[in-house]
Every structure is written in C-alpha cells, then in structure tokens.
C-alpha cells in the first residue's frame, strides 16, 4: 500500500470534504491569477495608447493666448487653444521632461488634419514605422501628405493622388494607425504647411505638445510640474486614459499580490481545519496504524500526501480557471481600449507560481493537521468505537 494509493482512496471516500478543500484552493489560485493579470493588463492599458506614439504626456491649453486668437475661426476648429511653438522650449526646461514635440491638429466636420514635425521620429502623432506604402514626410516637404489607410480606401486614394484640405496635397505615403492611437488623423502634413494654409494662418502656433519624460517613473511627476508651472495647461497621461475606460479593475500588481497572499493564508487555515476534522474522523484508523507499527513520521507522511494531492488538484484546476478568467478580463479590458491588450497574455510563470502556492498550502495544511495525528495515542484510538 503506498501513500499515494491510500491518499487517492481517502480522497474518494471523503468526496464532500475533498471537494470543499479543493474548491477553496481553486478560488484562491484562480483569484491570484485573475487579479495579477488584470493588474498587469491595467498597467499595460495605461501605457500602450500613448507609448505607441512614443509619448508619455499629451499637453494642451484650456485658455486662449491673450490677446490674439480669442473667438476666432481657428479656435473653433482646433482641438484646443493654440499656443506659441516657442513654449516647447520652456516645457523642456522642466527637469523630468526630455522632449516636447509640436502638433497642430485641426478638424473640419469629421476630417482631422494634423501638422507634424517630420524630424521627430521617436515621438510624434504618426511614426515612420506606421508607413505601409510610400514614404514618411521629410523636413523640406511642402505640399505633400501622408494619409490614413482607411481614409485612402474610403476615398479611393493611392500614392500620387491629390487630397484637398485648405490646399491641394500630393499623397506620398499611406499609414496604418491603430484605433487606440488618440492622435489618429486622416491627413498628416508638415507643420509649417498647416500653419500656412489654414484660413487664419496660425504661423508660429501649435495646439498640442507630445511630451516624453526621462523615465516611465517620472510621468506623474512631470505632468504635475507642468500643470503647476503653466496653470492654463492640462495634461493627459496613460493612467488618465485608462481611468476613463469603464469596467476596469483598477489595482496595481502589488495590491493584487497582497489580496492573493491573504486569500492563500485563509485557504491554508481553512484546509488545515478541514484536514483536522478528517484526522478526527479517522482517529481509530490512525490509532490502529500506529498500534501495528506505523511511526508518527509514517502517519504525517500519509496526511501530508493527501493534502498535497488536494493542493495539486486544486492548483491545476485553479490555474485552468484562472487562465480562463484572466483571459476573459484581459479580453474585456482589451475590448474597451481597442486591442491595446494584444500585447498581454497570461504569464506561464504566474501559472507556475499559482501551482506552487497551491502545493505549498497543501503541505502546510497537512502538517498543521498531522500535529493532531501525532498526538493521538493508539490505546485511546482503538477503544474509540
């Protein structure tokens, strides 16, 4: 009779108790995996939409520059109030800011027309890596444009076609930009050309700055400093974006782990309590085994094997369920944010950790319960009928 055969039989004999123990472990482990993956997913959501255009912060003005620009045509068609391009140098003087990139975004009905500085290839409303046909803009380009793939398909535009937005532009490139990119536009041209062709020419003005910080850890700090020094500015960071998406579990990975560890401890205590009951029910049986020459070590080994097997079953089921839940949660968050989570998949290491925790709880619960079995005196046990 080996401990595993015996354990399997005991597990089958005490189905209800075993099912409850396993359920506890399954809940703890699947919660661990789901929470941690949701936390990671959330963290990804907060970084991907802006990171895909190489920026950490989008900065804009809420009040018009005085005295010019007030109430004029251009203000009504810009996404935010224009400000002097020279302000970018001031923003760059903030310690946490590494680069401030100018954007002039204009809209007319449903069309979005964006002026960029093509020499900025790391942070920009559209990056060279998005080009799927033709070429990216060059700093000395004048009346040429790159256009969005879907817009090109809709309007039957190809390389060499002409698009009109306040002036004619020749299409030199087509870009594929994800819907999560909040700078997604129909037409991108050189900043200078936009400033020249708009009806009230905003020469020297822009209406947004894309800000790259010197480290991912200083994003919040940089945004706070910018808003404090220039009280009319507003900043959008990745976490601001994620907060606007509803239905998200907004916890960080550390909190997720803390909750999970607490759950694991409760599970251990719960399983131990249940195993104690199991030992009590088997008093007589354990007493007989001791009376015929089983040592405490043999008995402990048996009980730990049983609860270790429950831990293994619970761990495997918990990992499977956790994987399903976590995938569902990531899918839901991913749906909210339009595919930003295609970068996140359930971490196999996390599944491994879940399994190890489940096995560990089995061992600890078994050891706690076997203290009772070890104390059990065989004479008393055999007299129990």
């Amino acid at each position, binding site marked *: 009779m080996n401990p595993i055969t015996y354990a399997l039989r005991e597990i089958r004999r005490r189905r209800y108790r075993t099912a409850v123990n396993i359920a506890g472990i399954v809940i703890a482990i699947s919660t661990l995996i789901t929470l941690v993956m949701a936390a990671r997913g959330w963290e990804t959501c907060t970084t991907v939409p802006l990171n895909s255009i190489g920026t950490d912060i989008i900065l804009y003005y809420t009040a018009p520059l005085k005295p010019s620009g007030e109430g004029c045509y251009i203000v009504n068609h810009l996404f935010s109030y224009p400000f002097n391009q020279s302000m970018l140098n001031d923003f760059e003087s903030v310690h946490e800011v590494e680069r401030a990139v100018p954007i002039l975004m204009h809209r007319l009905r449903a069309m979005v027309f964006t002026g960029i500085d093509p020499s900025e290839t790391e942070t920009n409303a559209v990056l060279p890596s998005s080009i799927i046909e033709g070429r990216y803009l060059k700093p000395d380009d004048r009346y040429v444009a790159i256009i969005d793939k879907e817009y090109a398909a809709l309007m039957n535009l190809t390389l060499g076609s002409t698009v009109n937005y306040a002036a004619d532009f020749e299409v030199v490139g087509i870009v594929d930009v994800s819907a999560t990119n909040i700078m997604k536009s129909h037409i991108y041209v050189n900043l200078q050309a936009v400033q020249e062709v708009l009806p009230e020419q905003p020469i020297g003005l822009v209406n947004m700055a894309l800000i790259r910080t010197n480290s991912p850890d200083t994003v919040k700090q940089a945004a706070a400093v910018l808003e404090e020094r220039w009280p009319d500015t507003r900043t959008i960071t990745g976490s601001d974006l994620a907060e606007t998406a509803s239905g998200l579990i907004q916890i960080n990975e550390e909190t997720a782990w803390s909750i999970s560890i607490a759950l694991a401890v409760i599970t251990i205590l719960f399983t131990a309590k249940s195993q104690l009951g199991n030992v009590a029910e088997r008093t007589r049986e354990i007493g007989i085994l001791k009376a015929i020459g*089983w040592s405490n070590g043999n008995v402990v080994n048996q009980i730990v094997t049983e609860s270790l097997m429950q831990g293994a079953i619970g761990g495997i089921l918990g990992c499977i369920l956790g994987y399903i839940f976590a995938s569902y949660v990531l899918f839901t968050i991913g749906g909210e944010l339009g595919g930003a989570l295609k970068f996140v998949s359930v971490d196999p290491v996390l599944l491994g950790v879940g399994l190890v925790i489940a096995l560990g709880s089995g061992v600890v619960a078994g050891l706690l319960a076997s203290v009772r079995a070890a104390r059990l005196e065989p004479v008393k046990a055999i007299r129990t009928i």
Partner: protein
Amino acid sequence: MSTKNVIELSNLTKTYQRGNASEVKAVDDVSLKVVDGEFLTILGPSGSGKTTLLNLIGGLDKPSEGTVILDGLDISKLTESELVKVRREKVGFVFQAFNLIPTFSALENVEAPLAPTKMPKNERIERSQELLWLMGLKQRADHLPAELSAGEQQRVAIARAFANKPTVLLLDEPTGNLDTKSGKKILELCHRASKEQGQTVVAVTHATYIRRYTDCLLFMRDGKLFSQIPQEEFEEAE
C-alpha cells in the same frame, strides 16, 4: 524448547481515574513470566482487565507501576521511536474489535504493518498472500472488510498480526463474535501457526473452549491473575 523469558511482568499495575473520586485498578499487581514459544491463555470475565493487560504488554499503554520486559527490553524506559520499533518488529496484535482499516482490501490490511518497513513491495505482497492462504482466505484477498463475514475479518486480523513475524503475538478475544465452530477453527490456525513459526502467544478471552489449544491457562478477575480456575467458569460453555 528454550527457557528464555520473552515476557516478564513484575508488580504490574494500571490505575484509571474515574471522575475525581474513585480509582479503578484495571490491572492490579500482576507478575508473570512467559517463555519463548509458549501459548498462554488468560480467561476472565468482562471488565477484569484483560485488554488493559495486553495493551501494557504490547507497549500501547504505560503502566502506573511495575515493569514490562519484552524480549529483554524494559518497555517503560523506551523512547517513542524505540516503542514504534518494538510494535513494528516484536509484537503482533489482534485487537478485540478486529480493527481492520475499512478502505484497505484484505491483502492491504495484512500488508499494512509491513508498509513502513524496508521490505520490498513484491516481498510484502508475497508474504501477505501466503498468510491469507494460511488463513484460508486466498479467494478474499481483494475484498474490503465490509464485504467479509465476521469470521473472515477475524482471520484477516490474525494474518495481519503474523505479518511482521513477531516475537510475541497478543490475541484479544480472537474468537469473540464467532460461533464455537469458527472460533475453534481460528484457534487451531493460531496454534498451528505459532508452533510452526515459533511465536510466543498470549491470548485473552472468556471463551472457555480455548483451553484445548493452550499450553498454560491463567484466570483474571478484578485486575488480578490467578492460576486456579474457578470451576463455575466452565459450566456455561461445556
């Protein structure tokens, strides 16, 4: 036959506390020597202390006073792990209420005392099968205790007691719950097995027909041992 003393009890007393007032001397000042290979039977009415005495001899219980020397070892001076070794290697026990493990098959019950030993698995199974065969249970090896008759369960318990080739075999009511015919059959088996394998046997019972199979017969009452058997003890049985 050698005259080595396998069991030596001197002034053995076991006192139980009942509530806070009265004490019960379940075993009262018992001194006894059992030599190697002897089949000793102790007769006694219910509550006379027979089970308590066997538990003391087998190292399952600690005496209140006096000593138990089993195969040269003073039981009360042994550590827990030495006691485990004694139970595992020197003692074979048939408990009063069979006490088989309900989830183990007959074969596994017989194998159970061997499981913690170094004996290889195939040898353990071979030995267990041989013992079941000896007890006439060859066809019942895979049955659970609940699927066996009382007599068959009793025989499994006896096979289990023989499994570790013990120096002493302690039989507590080996024929209890059995009709006279099956009881006699069991005793015959025990007697033959002990003679063939050289075991020292101490059997306790209130079944008087046991005297036919025994080398020595003692009588127990109120915790005390007597060598004279009161005549009235035999009247009802024969």
